[in-house]
């Protein structure tokens, strides 16, 4: 047996594996797909329901509170620009995609990060897993996602959530490992149970690091949500993809600008929250 046939064998195994999984658990995956789409639609509605100016006002105030006055002005002008380019709905859909994926990611990543942060063995295993997730090219996740969940928004969200997973786990674990020893001792010395020590000492102390993970997840999710336009996710990604196909340079550029604006707003607001948490403690 030569190496070429070995490699072909491996490829075949992956393909049949994905196929077997998708046919065997067909109903289960349909359910999951339904749940994901329901969550996405809900969040989309929240973003698109209020008139655009109210939404922009709300985000400007949020930016003011977390990142300062300059950022508030930037948010105001940036979002108005998105509206003026006729891409308001697409921007909100992309933001909904990002927020939905990050919520799904965090629900799994934070508990895993907490476990990895307090257990050496689990930490070693997750580190290998996270290396794998982070270095695998993002496009690779799209195909199995389609195979399992079909074309549309839910495979896009799953692929996005996978991409955003690693930094949230890593930084949560890091935050937990960095809780000062004496604070852990204070918990013990005053009679804290393991749960009390986690919720009253370790998690508050690790919060800035966890929030830094959330910030990283948001950024990765945004880039993936755009890529996922290829497999039928809506929003700015779809717009970019459509514009590329018809070689509409202007429209592609418009959508690109909206993505940059959204990225900066999400980044600065979440980073502002991290700084607020850090300065509160020290």
């Amino acid at each position, binding site marked *: 047996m030569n190496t070429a046939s070995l490699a072909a064998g491996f490829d075949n195994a992956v393909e049949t594996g994905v196929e077997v999984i998708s046919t065997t658990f067909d109903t289960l995956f349909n359910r999951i797909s339904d749940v994901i789409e329901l969550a996405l639609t809900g969040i989309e509605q929240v973003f698109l329901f209020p008139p655009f100016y109210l939404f922009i006002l709300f985000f400007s105030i949020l930016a003011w509170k977390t990142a300062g006055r300059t950022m508030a002005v930037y948010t105001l002008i940036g979002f108005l620009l998105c509206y003026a380019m006729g891409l308001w709905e697409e921007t909100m859909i992309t933001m909904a995609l990002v927020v939905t994926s990050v919520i799904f990611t965090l629900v799994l990543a934070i508990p895993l990060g907490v476990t990895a942060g307090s257990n050496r063995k689990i930490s070693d295993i997750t580190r290998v897993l996270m290396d794998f997730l982070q270095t695998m090219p993002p496009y690779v996740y799209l195909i199995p996602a389609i195979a399992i969940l079909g074309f549309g928004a839910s495979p896009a969200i799953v692929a996005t959530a996978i991409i955003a997973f690693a930094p949230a786990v890593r930084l949560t674990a890091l935050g937990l490992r960095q809780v000062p020893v004496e604070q852990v001792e204070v918990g*013990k010395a*005053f009679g804290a149970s393991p749960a009390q020590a986690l919720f009253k000492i370790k998690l508050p102390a690790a919060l800035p690091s966890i929030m830094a993970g959330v910030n990283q997840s948001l950024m990765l999710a945004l880039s993936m949500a755009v890529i996922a336009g290829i497999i039928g996710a809506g929003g700015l990604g779809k717009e970019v993809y459509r514009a590329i196909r018809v070689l509409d340079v202007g429209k592609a550029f418009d959508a690109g600008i909206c993505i940059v604006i959204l990225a900066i707003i999400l980044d600065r607001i979440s980073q502002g929250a991290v700084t607020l948490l850090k300065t509160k403690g020290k």
Partner: protein
Amino acid sequence: MTTQTVPAIECKHVWKIYGKKEKLAHQAVLERSLTKEKCLETYGCVIGVQDASFCVQPGEIFCIMGLSGSGKSTLMRHINRLIDPTDGTILVNGIDINQLSEAKMRKLRSEKIGMVFQNMALLPHRNVRDNVAFGLELRKIPKEKRWEIADNALELVHLSGWGDQLPKNLSGGMQQRVGLARALASDPDILLMDEPFSALDPLIRRQLQDQFLELSSKLKKSTLFITHDLDEAIRIGDHIAIMKDGVLVQTGTPEEIVTHPADAYVADFVAGISRLHLVTARSVMYPAAEFSARHPDQELSHLPTVAETDDLDTLVELMTDVEANRVAVTRNGRIAGVVTRRSLLRGIQGKPPERMNGQAPAALTTKKDTITA
């Protein structure tokens, strides 16, 4: 009262050996009296605490003094079982804490033992009041009640009105007072203080020592106090244990330690300590009979007098005030001895009075010697 009081804390032959083969190493040290170096070489184990035994009586302050790395903090962490011993027994209020379940141990920690940390270790995300109330919160005491208790504890350490501040807004000295208030809030029987004042500058340190002593005489908590500063141990402790390389080399009252150092190591430590407030007149006097035999012309009843338990400072004051060269020392109202300028000066130096009849000088005597004699 014939019932013997139960010590607040009692450690019996406590060993702590770090390493995978701690039990084996412990056996080997016991059976073949292995040295520390051999133990590390053969078993890869480090001896943290070696055969430590001591007793803290209810209401007293017991100081453990030692340099960094001597194992004193490790030893203290056995008392509330933050560390489990390799061998030995630890009794808190007569209860063997290593027999307790985790839940019972937590209850004991939260209700009976308060701890103060060297680096304050306040929780930075909580305000001062919530820091003080932390132990009560863990016990699920309702908010109003625990805030009231916390405010009272803050008043004890003279920090009323600071409850709403975050710890970072307080100076080091104030933060440590918050740490003390936190330990006192649950009204524990026992206070564990791990070098509480070491990180503070000397002036603040002395202020806090005074405040603590005042508070302690009021509250009468049994206190285990760790320090690397012998002056502090002498100022604060009713009893002092000197620790070196994991071993308690000497335990006694401050006066015993200063006047009867057990070995060269302790002697070296106490060499620079001022004896003025530690050593009593009894220790530096010539016995009355001996003195009279040598100086028959001196009428003892004409001399100014001090009690035998007065300290050297009193003697110095008296001698400089009335320009007396000799002072009579009384015991139960009768003259027991005489202090001369010469014997007083020798006493301040840490030497006993030389014998008038040419015998070798005896060691300085202390309060405890005469009581037990």
